[in-house]
């Protein structure tokens, strides 16, 4: 279930439609402070169904919509699409490629698409539940968070392990 492609449009600093084609193996994202690297990581969390604005570093969920800058005015929606290679059938769907899209409008409305079909947020959560990409998995380690597991209480750590197991 490798990531093939990430498309961002209106998500945080990605005011222009941007497509990132990923390869297998090890990819490195580089660039100056504030250029948008961690915003890419936020986009992956978000399209996988993240519900905490705080985890996305905002105060409310539509803080992810491009707010404007000196060079462009704000946008009214944010959209991210994540495309997976599914020929291992890790995702329980009969497709070789699976795409997940999440859209939010400034009005607050949200849309979720699975292979271009409208679904509910809980369908997205359900889909990824047994793939090791769920909520508390180790798939995504955010900036500044790596040593957090050392600060956990022994029982919190146990809960994390239970989820991994």
């Amino acid at each position, binding site marked *: *279930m*490798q*990531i093939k492609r990430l498309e961002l449009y209106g998500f945080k*600093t*990605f*005011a*222009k439609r*941007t*497509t*990132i084609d*990923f*390869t*297998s*193996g*090890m*990819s*490195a*994202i*580089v*660039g*100056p402070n*504030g*250029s*948008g*690297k*961690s*915003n*890419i*990581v936020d986009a992956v969390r978000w399209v996988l169904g993240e519900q905490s604005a705080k985890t996305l570093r905002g105060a409310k969920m539509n803080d992810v919509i491009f707010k404007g*800058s*000196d*060079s*462009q005015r704000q946008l009214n929606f944010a959209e991210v699409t994540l495309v*997976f290679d599914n020929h291992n059938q890790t995702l329980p769907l009969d497709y070789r490629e699976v795409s997940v899209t999440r859209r939010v409008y400034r009005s607050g409305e949200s849309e979720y698409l699975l292979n271009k079909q409208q679904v509910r947020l809980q369908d997205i959560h359900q889909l990824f539940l047994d*793939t*090791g*990409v769920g909520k508390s*998995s*180790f*798939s*995504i*380690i*955010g*900036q*500044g*968070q*790596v*040593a*957090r*597991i*050392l600060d956990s*209480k*022994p*029982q*919190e*750590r*146990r809960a994390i*392990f239970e989820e*991994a*197991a």
Partner: protein
Amino acid sequence: MNQRFQTTFTQIQTAFADVFAQMFGGGTARLVLTDAEYEDERGIELHVQPPGKKMQHLSLLSGGERALTAICLLFAIIRVRPVPFSILDEVEAALDEHNVNRFAKYVHSYSQDSQFIVVTHRQGTMEMADALYGVTMQQAGISTLVSVRLDEAQKMIQS
């Protein structure tokens, strides 16, 4: 205790000790289940000893030692329960160059089986990547993706 948890825990325990010794070039690392009245109240403690040093509270470890220990635990868990992809955002910020290189080699070897996407501003990590993606802000406040070669990325980080 859940048999499946017990088995997984034992495997992670072994992997953690192994990864730590490789990453630190020695030393010992133990995962320990704490005592409790009921099995499901037991927690997990880390008892760690960098090479040549005594075992002490995790809090006394240096910034770099703590980051590297956490990285070892992450790799141990991934070794036992592989994930389809792993995204790491500047996890090696506290590491010195020597440890960055060790970390980068490790990620690269794991990336044969798992896809790794790392955000980094460290040269050692960039050198081990199969592909580099540059993010810049050519227009005020707007991110642009640019393709970068290693030498261009290196120039970018060498001010």
